[in-house]
């Protein structure tokens, strides 16, 4: 069934090219078809995945590609990547369906579809790649299509500037990342992530590890984004079209944190131990900073975008503890954030389409009365986002905090206790801005009614809602898969 691993990349790739040859009017339908098939393949992977061996890479493909670079086409999934692969396929499929709304059919659909599928190739590939350079390559594939989607289909007047800032900033990050990866390569002569993980830093000097970790983590930090490297994100999310925002927040940011878990921490353990406190500190600063910034935001999409910084702060804190619990939490939070923020951006997009704007004051409030289902979904998503137990947002935050309470032995415990306390405070502030937002958007005097959730929107949003609830109630679904893999990653820790 290794074919599936290839299929989840090849299908969108083929779709991205084929769609260019099709007439405009069938493009969106074709996209639904392709991304649906890809989702089916991803579900196939879920089916054939052996959960007993979740800590090992399965369904793998390993072919030589560019011997001169030492680059191999090495793909596969384990407990860490499987959930993210599925998330990507799911969100892409949902985005495709979302494009079929009669009210919101996009301008130049063929090009948009092609770009989205290309982005999907990159995102999926990033999670599947088991070769440093292959990872980097897929990491880069996403940039151009995302840029084009923002610049070409964005809403506001600042879209081109926002897109440009996005691509330049993230390219800066990936350049630094590449440098870090090549530092690893020059000191180990292998690009194979599994082999490097097995070695666990053996053969790389302590200083080199620190330098390489700084570079790799620094590069990925832009994508995550880590405070204070986040300034591309609010603009990009705000200006992007709905599907763009969803993919940006839902998948793209995860590529950064996934890279930290997959490469930075296991391959460079000594470097990680040295730098992790800094990451943790930046993470908690990000949580509080983003929450405060959100409190003062006037635009709904911008608020959601900033909230991503905060949520990724929890992810970062989890990773920075270098414990299985922390990494589990980070991976879970990744997934949860993908679902929840994806939903939030969908909702914000729906609102923008109905009210013409996402300015919070301009939305007029009282949404629960003007479109009860839409308002209800917004309330649900916001509550999920603030980390309510029983919904997906809870477990990631919980584990991040718990792991900060008992970080890995090499780390300074007092410091992490401080992190935990600040992060806890940040969680309160997070609740604060989300509820204030609800107050201003969903509650208050009821104005003119707007169209409630349409059929297509239900199709797109319902799976997200269901998954948020399911993952919240039955976290084992994810943690059971990641736990073993994470422990293997940290060397049986």
């Amino acid at each position, binding site marked *: 069934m290794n074919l599936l691993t290839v299929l989840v990349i090849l299908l969108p790739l083929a779709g991205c090219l084929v769609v260019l040859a099709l007439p405009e009017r069938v493009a969106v339908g074709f996209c639904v078809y392709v991304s649906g098939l890809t989702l089916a393949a991803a579900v196939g992977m879920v089916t054939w995945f052996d959960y007993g061996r979740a800590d090992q890479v399965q369904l793998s493909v390993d072919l030589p590609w560019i011997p001169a670079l030492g680059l191999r086409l090495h793909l596969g999934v384990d407990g860490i990547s499987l959930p993210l692969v599925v998330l990507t396929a799911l969100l892409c499929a949902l985005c495709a369906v979302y494009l079929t709304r009669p009210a919101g059919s996009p301008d130049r659909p063929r090009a948009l579809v092609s770009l989205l599928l290309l982005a999907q190739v990159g995102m999926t590939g990033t999670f599947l790649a088991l070769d440093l350079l292959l990872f980097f390559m897929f990491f880069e594939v996403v940039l151009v299509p995302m840029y084009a989607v923002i610049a070409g289909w964005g809403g506001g007047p600042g879209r081109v500037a926002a897109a440009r800032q996005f691509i330049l900033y993230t390219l800066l990050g990936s350049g630094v990342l590449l440098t870090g990866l090549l530092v690893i390569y020059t000191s180990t002569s292998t690009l194979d992530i599994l082999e490097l993980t097995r070695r666990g830093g053996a053969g790389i000097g302590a200083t080199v590890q620190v330098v390489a970790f700084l570079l790799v983590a620094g590069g990925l930090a832009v994508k995550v984004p880590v405070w204070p490297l986040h300034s591309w994100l609010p603009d990009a999310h705000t200006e992007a079209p709905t599907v763009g925002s969803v993919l940006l927040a839902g998948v793209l940011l995860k590529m950064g944190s996934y890279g930290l878990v997959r490469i930075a921490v296991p391959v460079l353990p000594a470097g990680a131990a040295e730098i992790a406190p800094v990451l943790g500190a930046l993470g908690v600063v990000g949580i509080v900073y983003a929450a405060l910034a959100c*409190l003062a935001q006037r635009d709904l999409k911008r608020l959601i975008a900033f909230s991503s910084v905060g949520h990724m702060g929890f992810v970062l804190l989890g990773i920075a503890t270098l414990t*299985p619990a922390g990494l589990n939490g980070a991976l879970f939070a990744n997934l949860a954030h993908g679902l929840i923020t994806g939903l939030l951006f969908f909702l914000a997009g729906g609102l923008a389409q109905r009210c013409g704007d996402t300015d919070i004051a301009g939305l007029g409030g009282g949404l629960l009365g003007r479109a009860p289902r839409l308002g209800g979904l917004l*309330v649900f998503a916001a509550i999920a986002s603030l980390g309510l*137990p029983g919904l997906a947002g809870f477990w990631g935050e919980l584990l991040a*905090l718990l792991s900060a309470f*008992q970080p890995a032995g090499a780390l300074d415990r007092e410091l992490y206790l401080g992190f935990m306390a600040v992060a*806890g405070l940040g969680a309160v*502030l997070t609740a*604060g801005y989300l509820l204030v937002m609800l107050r201003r958007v969903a*509650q208050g005097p009821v104005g003119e009614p707007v169209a409630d959730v349409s059929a297509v929107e239900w199709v797109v949003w319902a799976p997200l809602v269901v998954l948020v609830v399911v993952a919240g109630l039955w976290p084992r679904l994810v943690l059971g898969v990641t736990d073993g893999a994470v422990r293997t990653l940290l060397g049986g820790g």
Partner: protein
Amino acid sequence: MTVGTLAALAVLAPFAAAALGLPLGRVLSASALALSGTFLAAALGILVASFAAAAPARVWETAAVLTPTGTIPVTLGVLVDGLSGTVAVMVALVALAVQMYSVGYLRHDPRYPSYAALVSLFTAAMLTVVLAADLLVVYAGWEVMGICSYLLIGHRWERQANSAAAVKSFLMTRFGDVGFLFGIFVLGVAAGSFRISDVLAAVPELPAGTLLAATLLLVAGVVGRSAQFPLHTWLPDAMAGPAPVSALIHAATMVAAGVYVVARLFPAFEAAPVSLNVLAVLAVVSMVGAALAALTAGDLKRVLAYSTISQVSLMFAALAIGARVPAVGHLLSHAAFKALLFLCAGAVIMMVGSSLLTDLGGLREVMPVTFVTMTIGFAALAGLPPTSGFFIKDALVTAAEQAARGGPAPVGAATAVLVLGALLLTGLLTGAYVTRAWLLTFFGPPRARFQPVHPEAPPVMTLPLLALAVPALLLGFGGLNWETLRPQRDSALLSVLLAGIGVVAAYAGWRADPVRDPAVALGRLRGLFATALHTNDLYERTVARAVRRLATVVAGVDDRVVGRAVTGVGRGARRLGGVIRLTQNGNPQFYLTGLLAGVLLLAVGVVLLT
């Protein structure tokens, strides 16, 4: 079917009602769903509690790993013993009464389906807190309660004040919850398990510092959730929610959940007396302060809300001096009479359309059932015999007295004396504010225009009132089994005497002018008390304003510094390019000069370096 399974089902029944009711409330019959779920929970709860009562020493515990976490796993299971069984029954019964009452109370409300489902969800969450065997699951229930409270307070979200109150309640409680969660971490990690039984078993081995930290952190959570000083200001505002919600959440169950948790983890607290001292002091402040506020509050529901704070403080005070059984006993009796009082207040509101004391008056004839049941409730609140409140308060005073005399108590005698004094003072004040509210509501001339309807309320509402009046009146007798709950002569006399003074004073004040609020007699102090010593303003001025200002600053910094730093770098690069391009001036001789000078520099550099 084991007891554990039954208990689990008791939790799941209202949860299922909520899970079905939230998305499908408009399709299915919301009321049937909610009532059946809650009824099932109550029935199962009684069954479970009866098993527990039959074998008081026995503990039923089930546990399955909910999820691995990478460290201590989270387990899903129930812990049934006498304590949890009894409280669970109380919760389910009050919830049932409230659900029933709500059918009538909200019969014209289009949002009833979501309301009913949320109440069911709340019930499930509260039962989770009571029955769960794992502290993290307790925390989960604890938080879900919070969000339900938030949503239900904001039930009428059209009014800005209501949604503001909802947000405030959630944030203040969540602030405490952070401490609560960290307390759980400390206990769980130290004990190597989050299971309550494991934690309690490990308490004797744990270092004192750990226990102190854990219990202090737990106190923070408890204080927030139970609206104790200094996190008390949300509860009066929470009265923006519909009366039955106040009855269930903000009187009977959620607010008292903190008491339950402390009782549950009492061994840990006993081993950390400093925490209990802190708890005692906070309780004393809350107790007296809230009673004073209740004395002057101008809104019937706010009177009740302050009285709730005050009464919950009594329970904490009891726990602090080691009187666990009276504390739990008060938890139960308070649940009964306070739920009753709120439901009565709801009936009043339905009749009059207002809950301002200045709008009420003379309702005695119009609302006979409400009058009778509410009178019972008030009597219980004031601790007048023979109501349940009398027995409990007497037990509390007795326990405090013993502790003050140096009896076996985890806190020192000084604290006990403080607690005793506060108890007595609160008894006096309670008598006074109860009388004031009672008189202003039911006696004197009617002060607002309204159309009296007959009957005063549909039976679906009066039935719960009557049902709750029974335990409010008689629960005290059920407690006679316990040694600590039997009335002692001296203390009984003392507390009744004090309550009586309060009653008489209030009556005297009212008698002088039935239209006027007797609290006017307090003069300037009235305003001070009514605002709970300006604590709310203080928070608004300091914390809330500071956060808001900080948020503006951060947003500005983000925009001007972080964001502009990035764009500034880009602009700088462009400018630099603009400077460098000046060298490309078109003059080939300049080019050649550059070339040759460059070569020269390179050559000299190389020669010097070799």
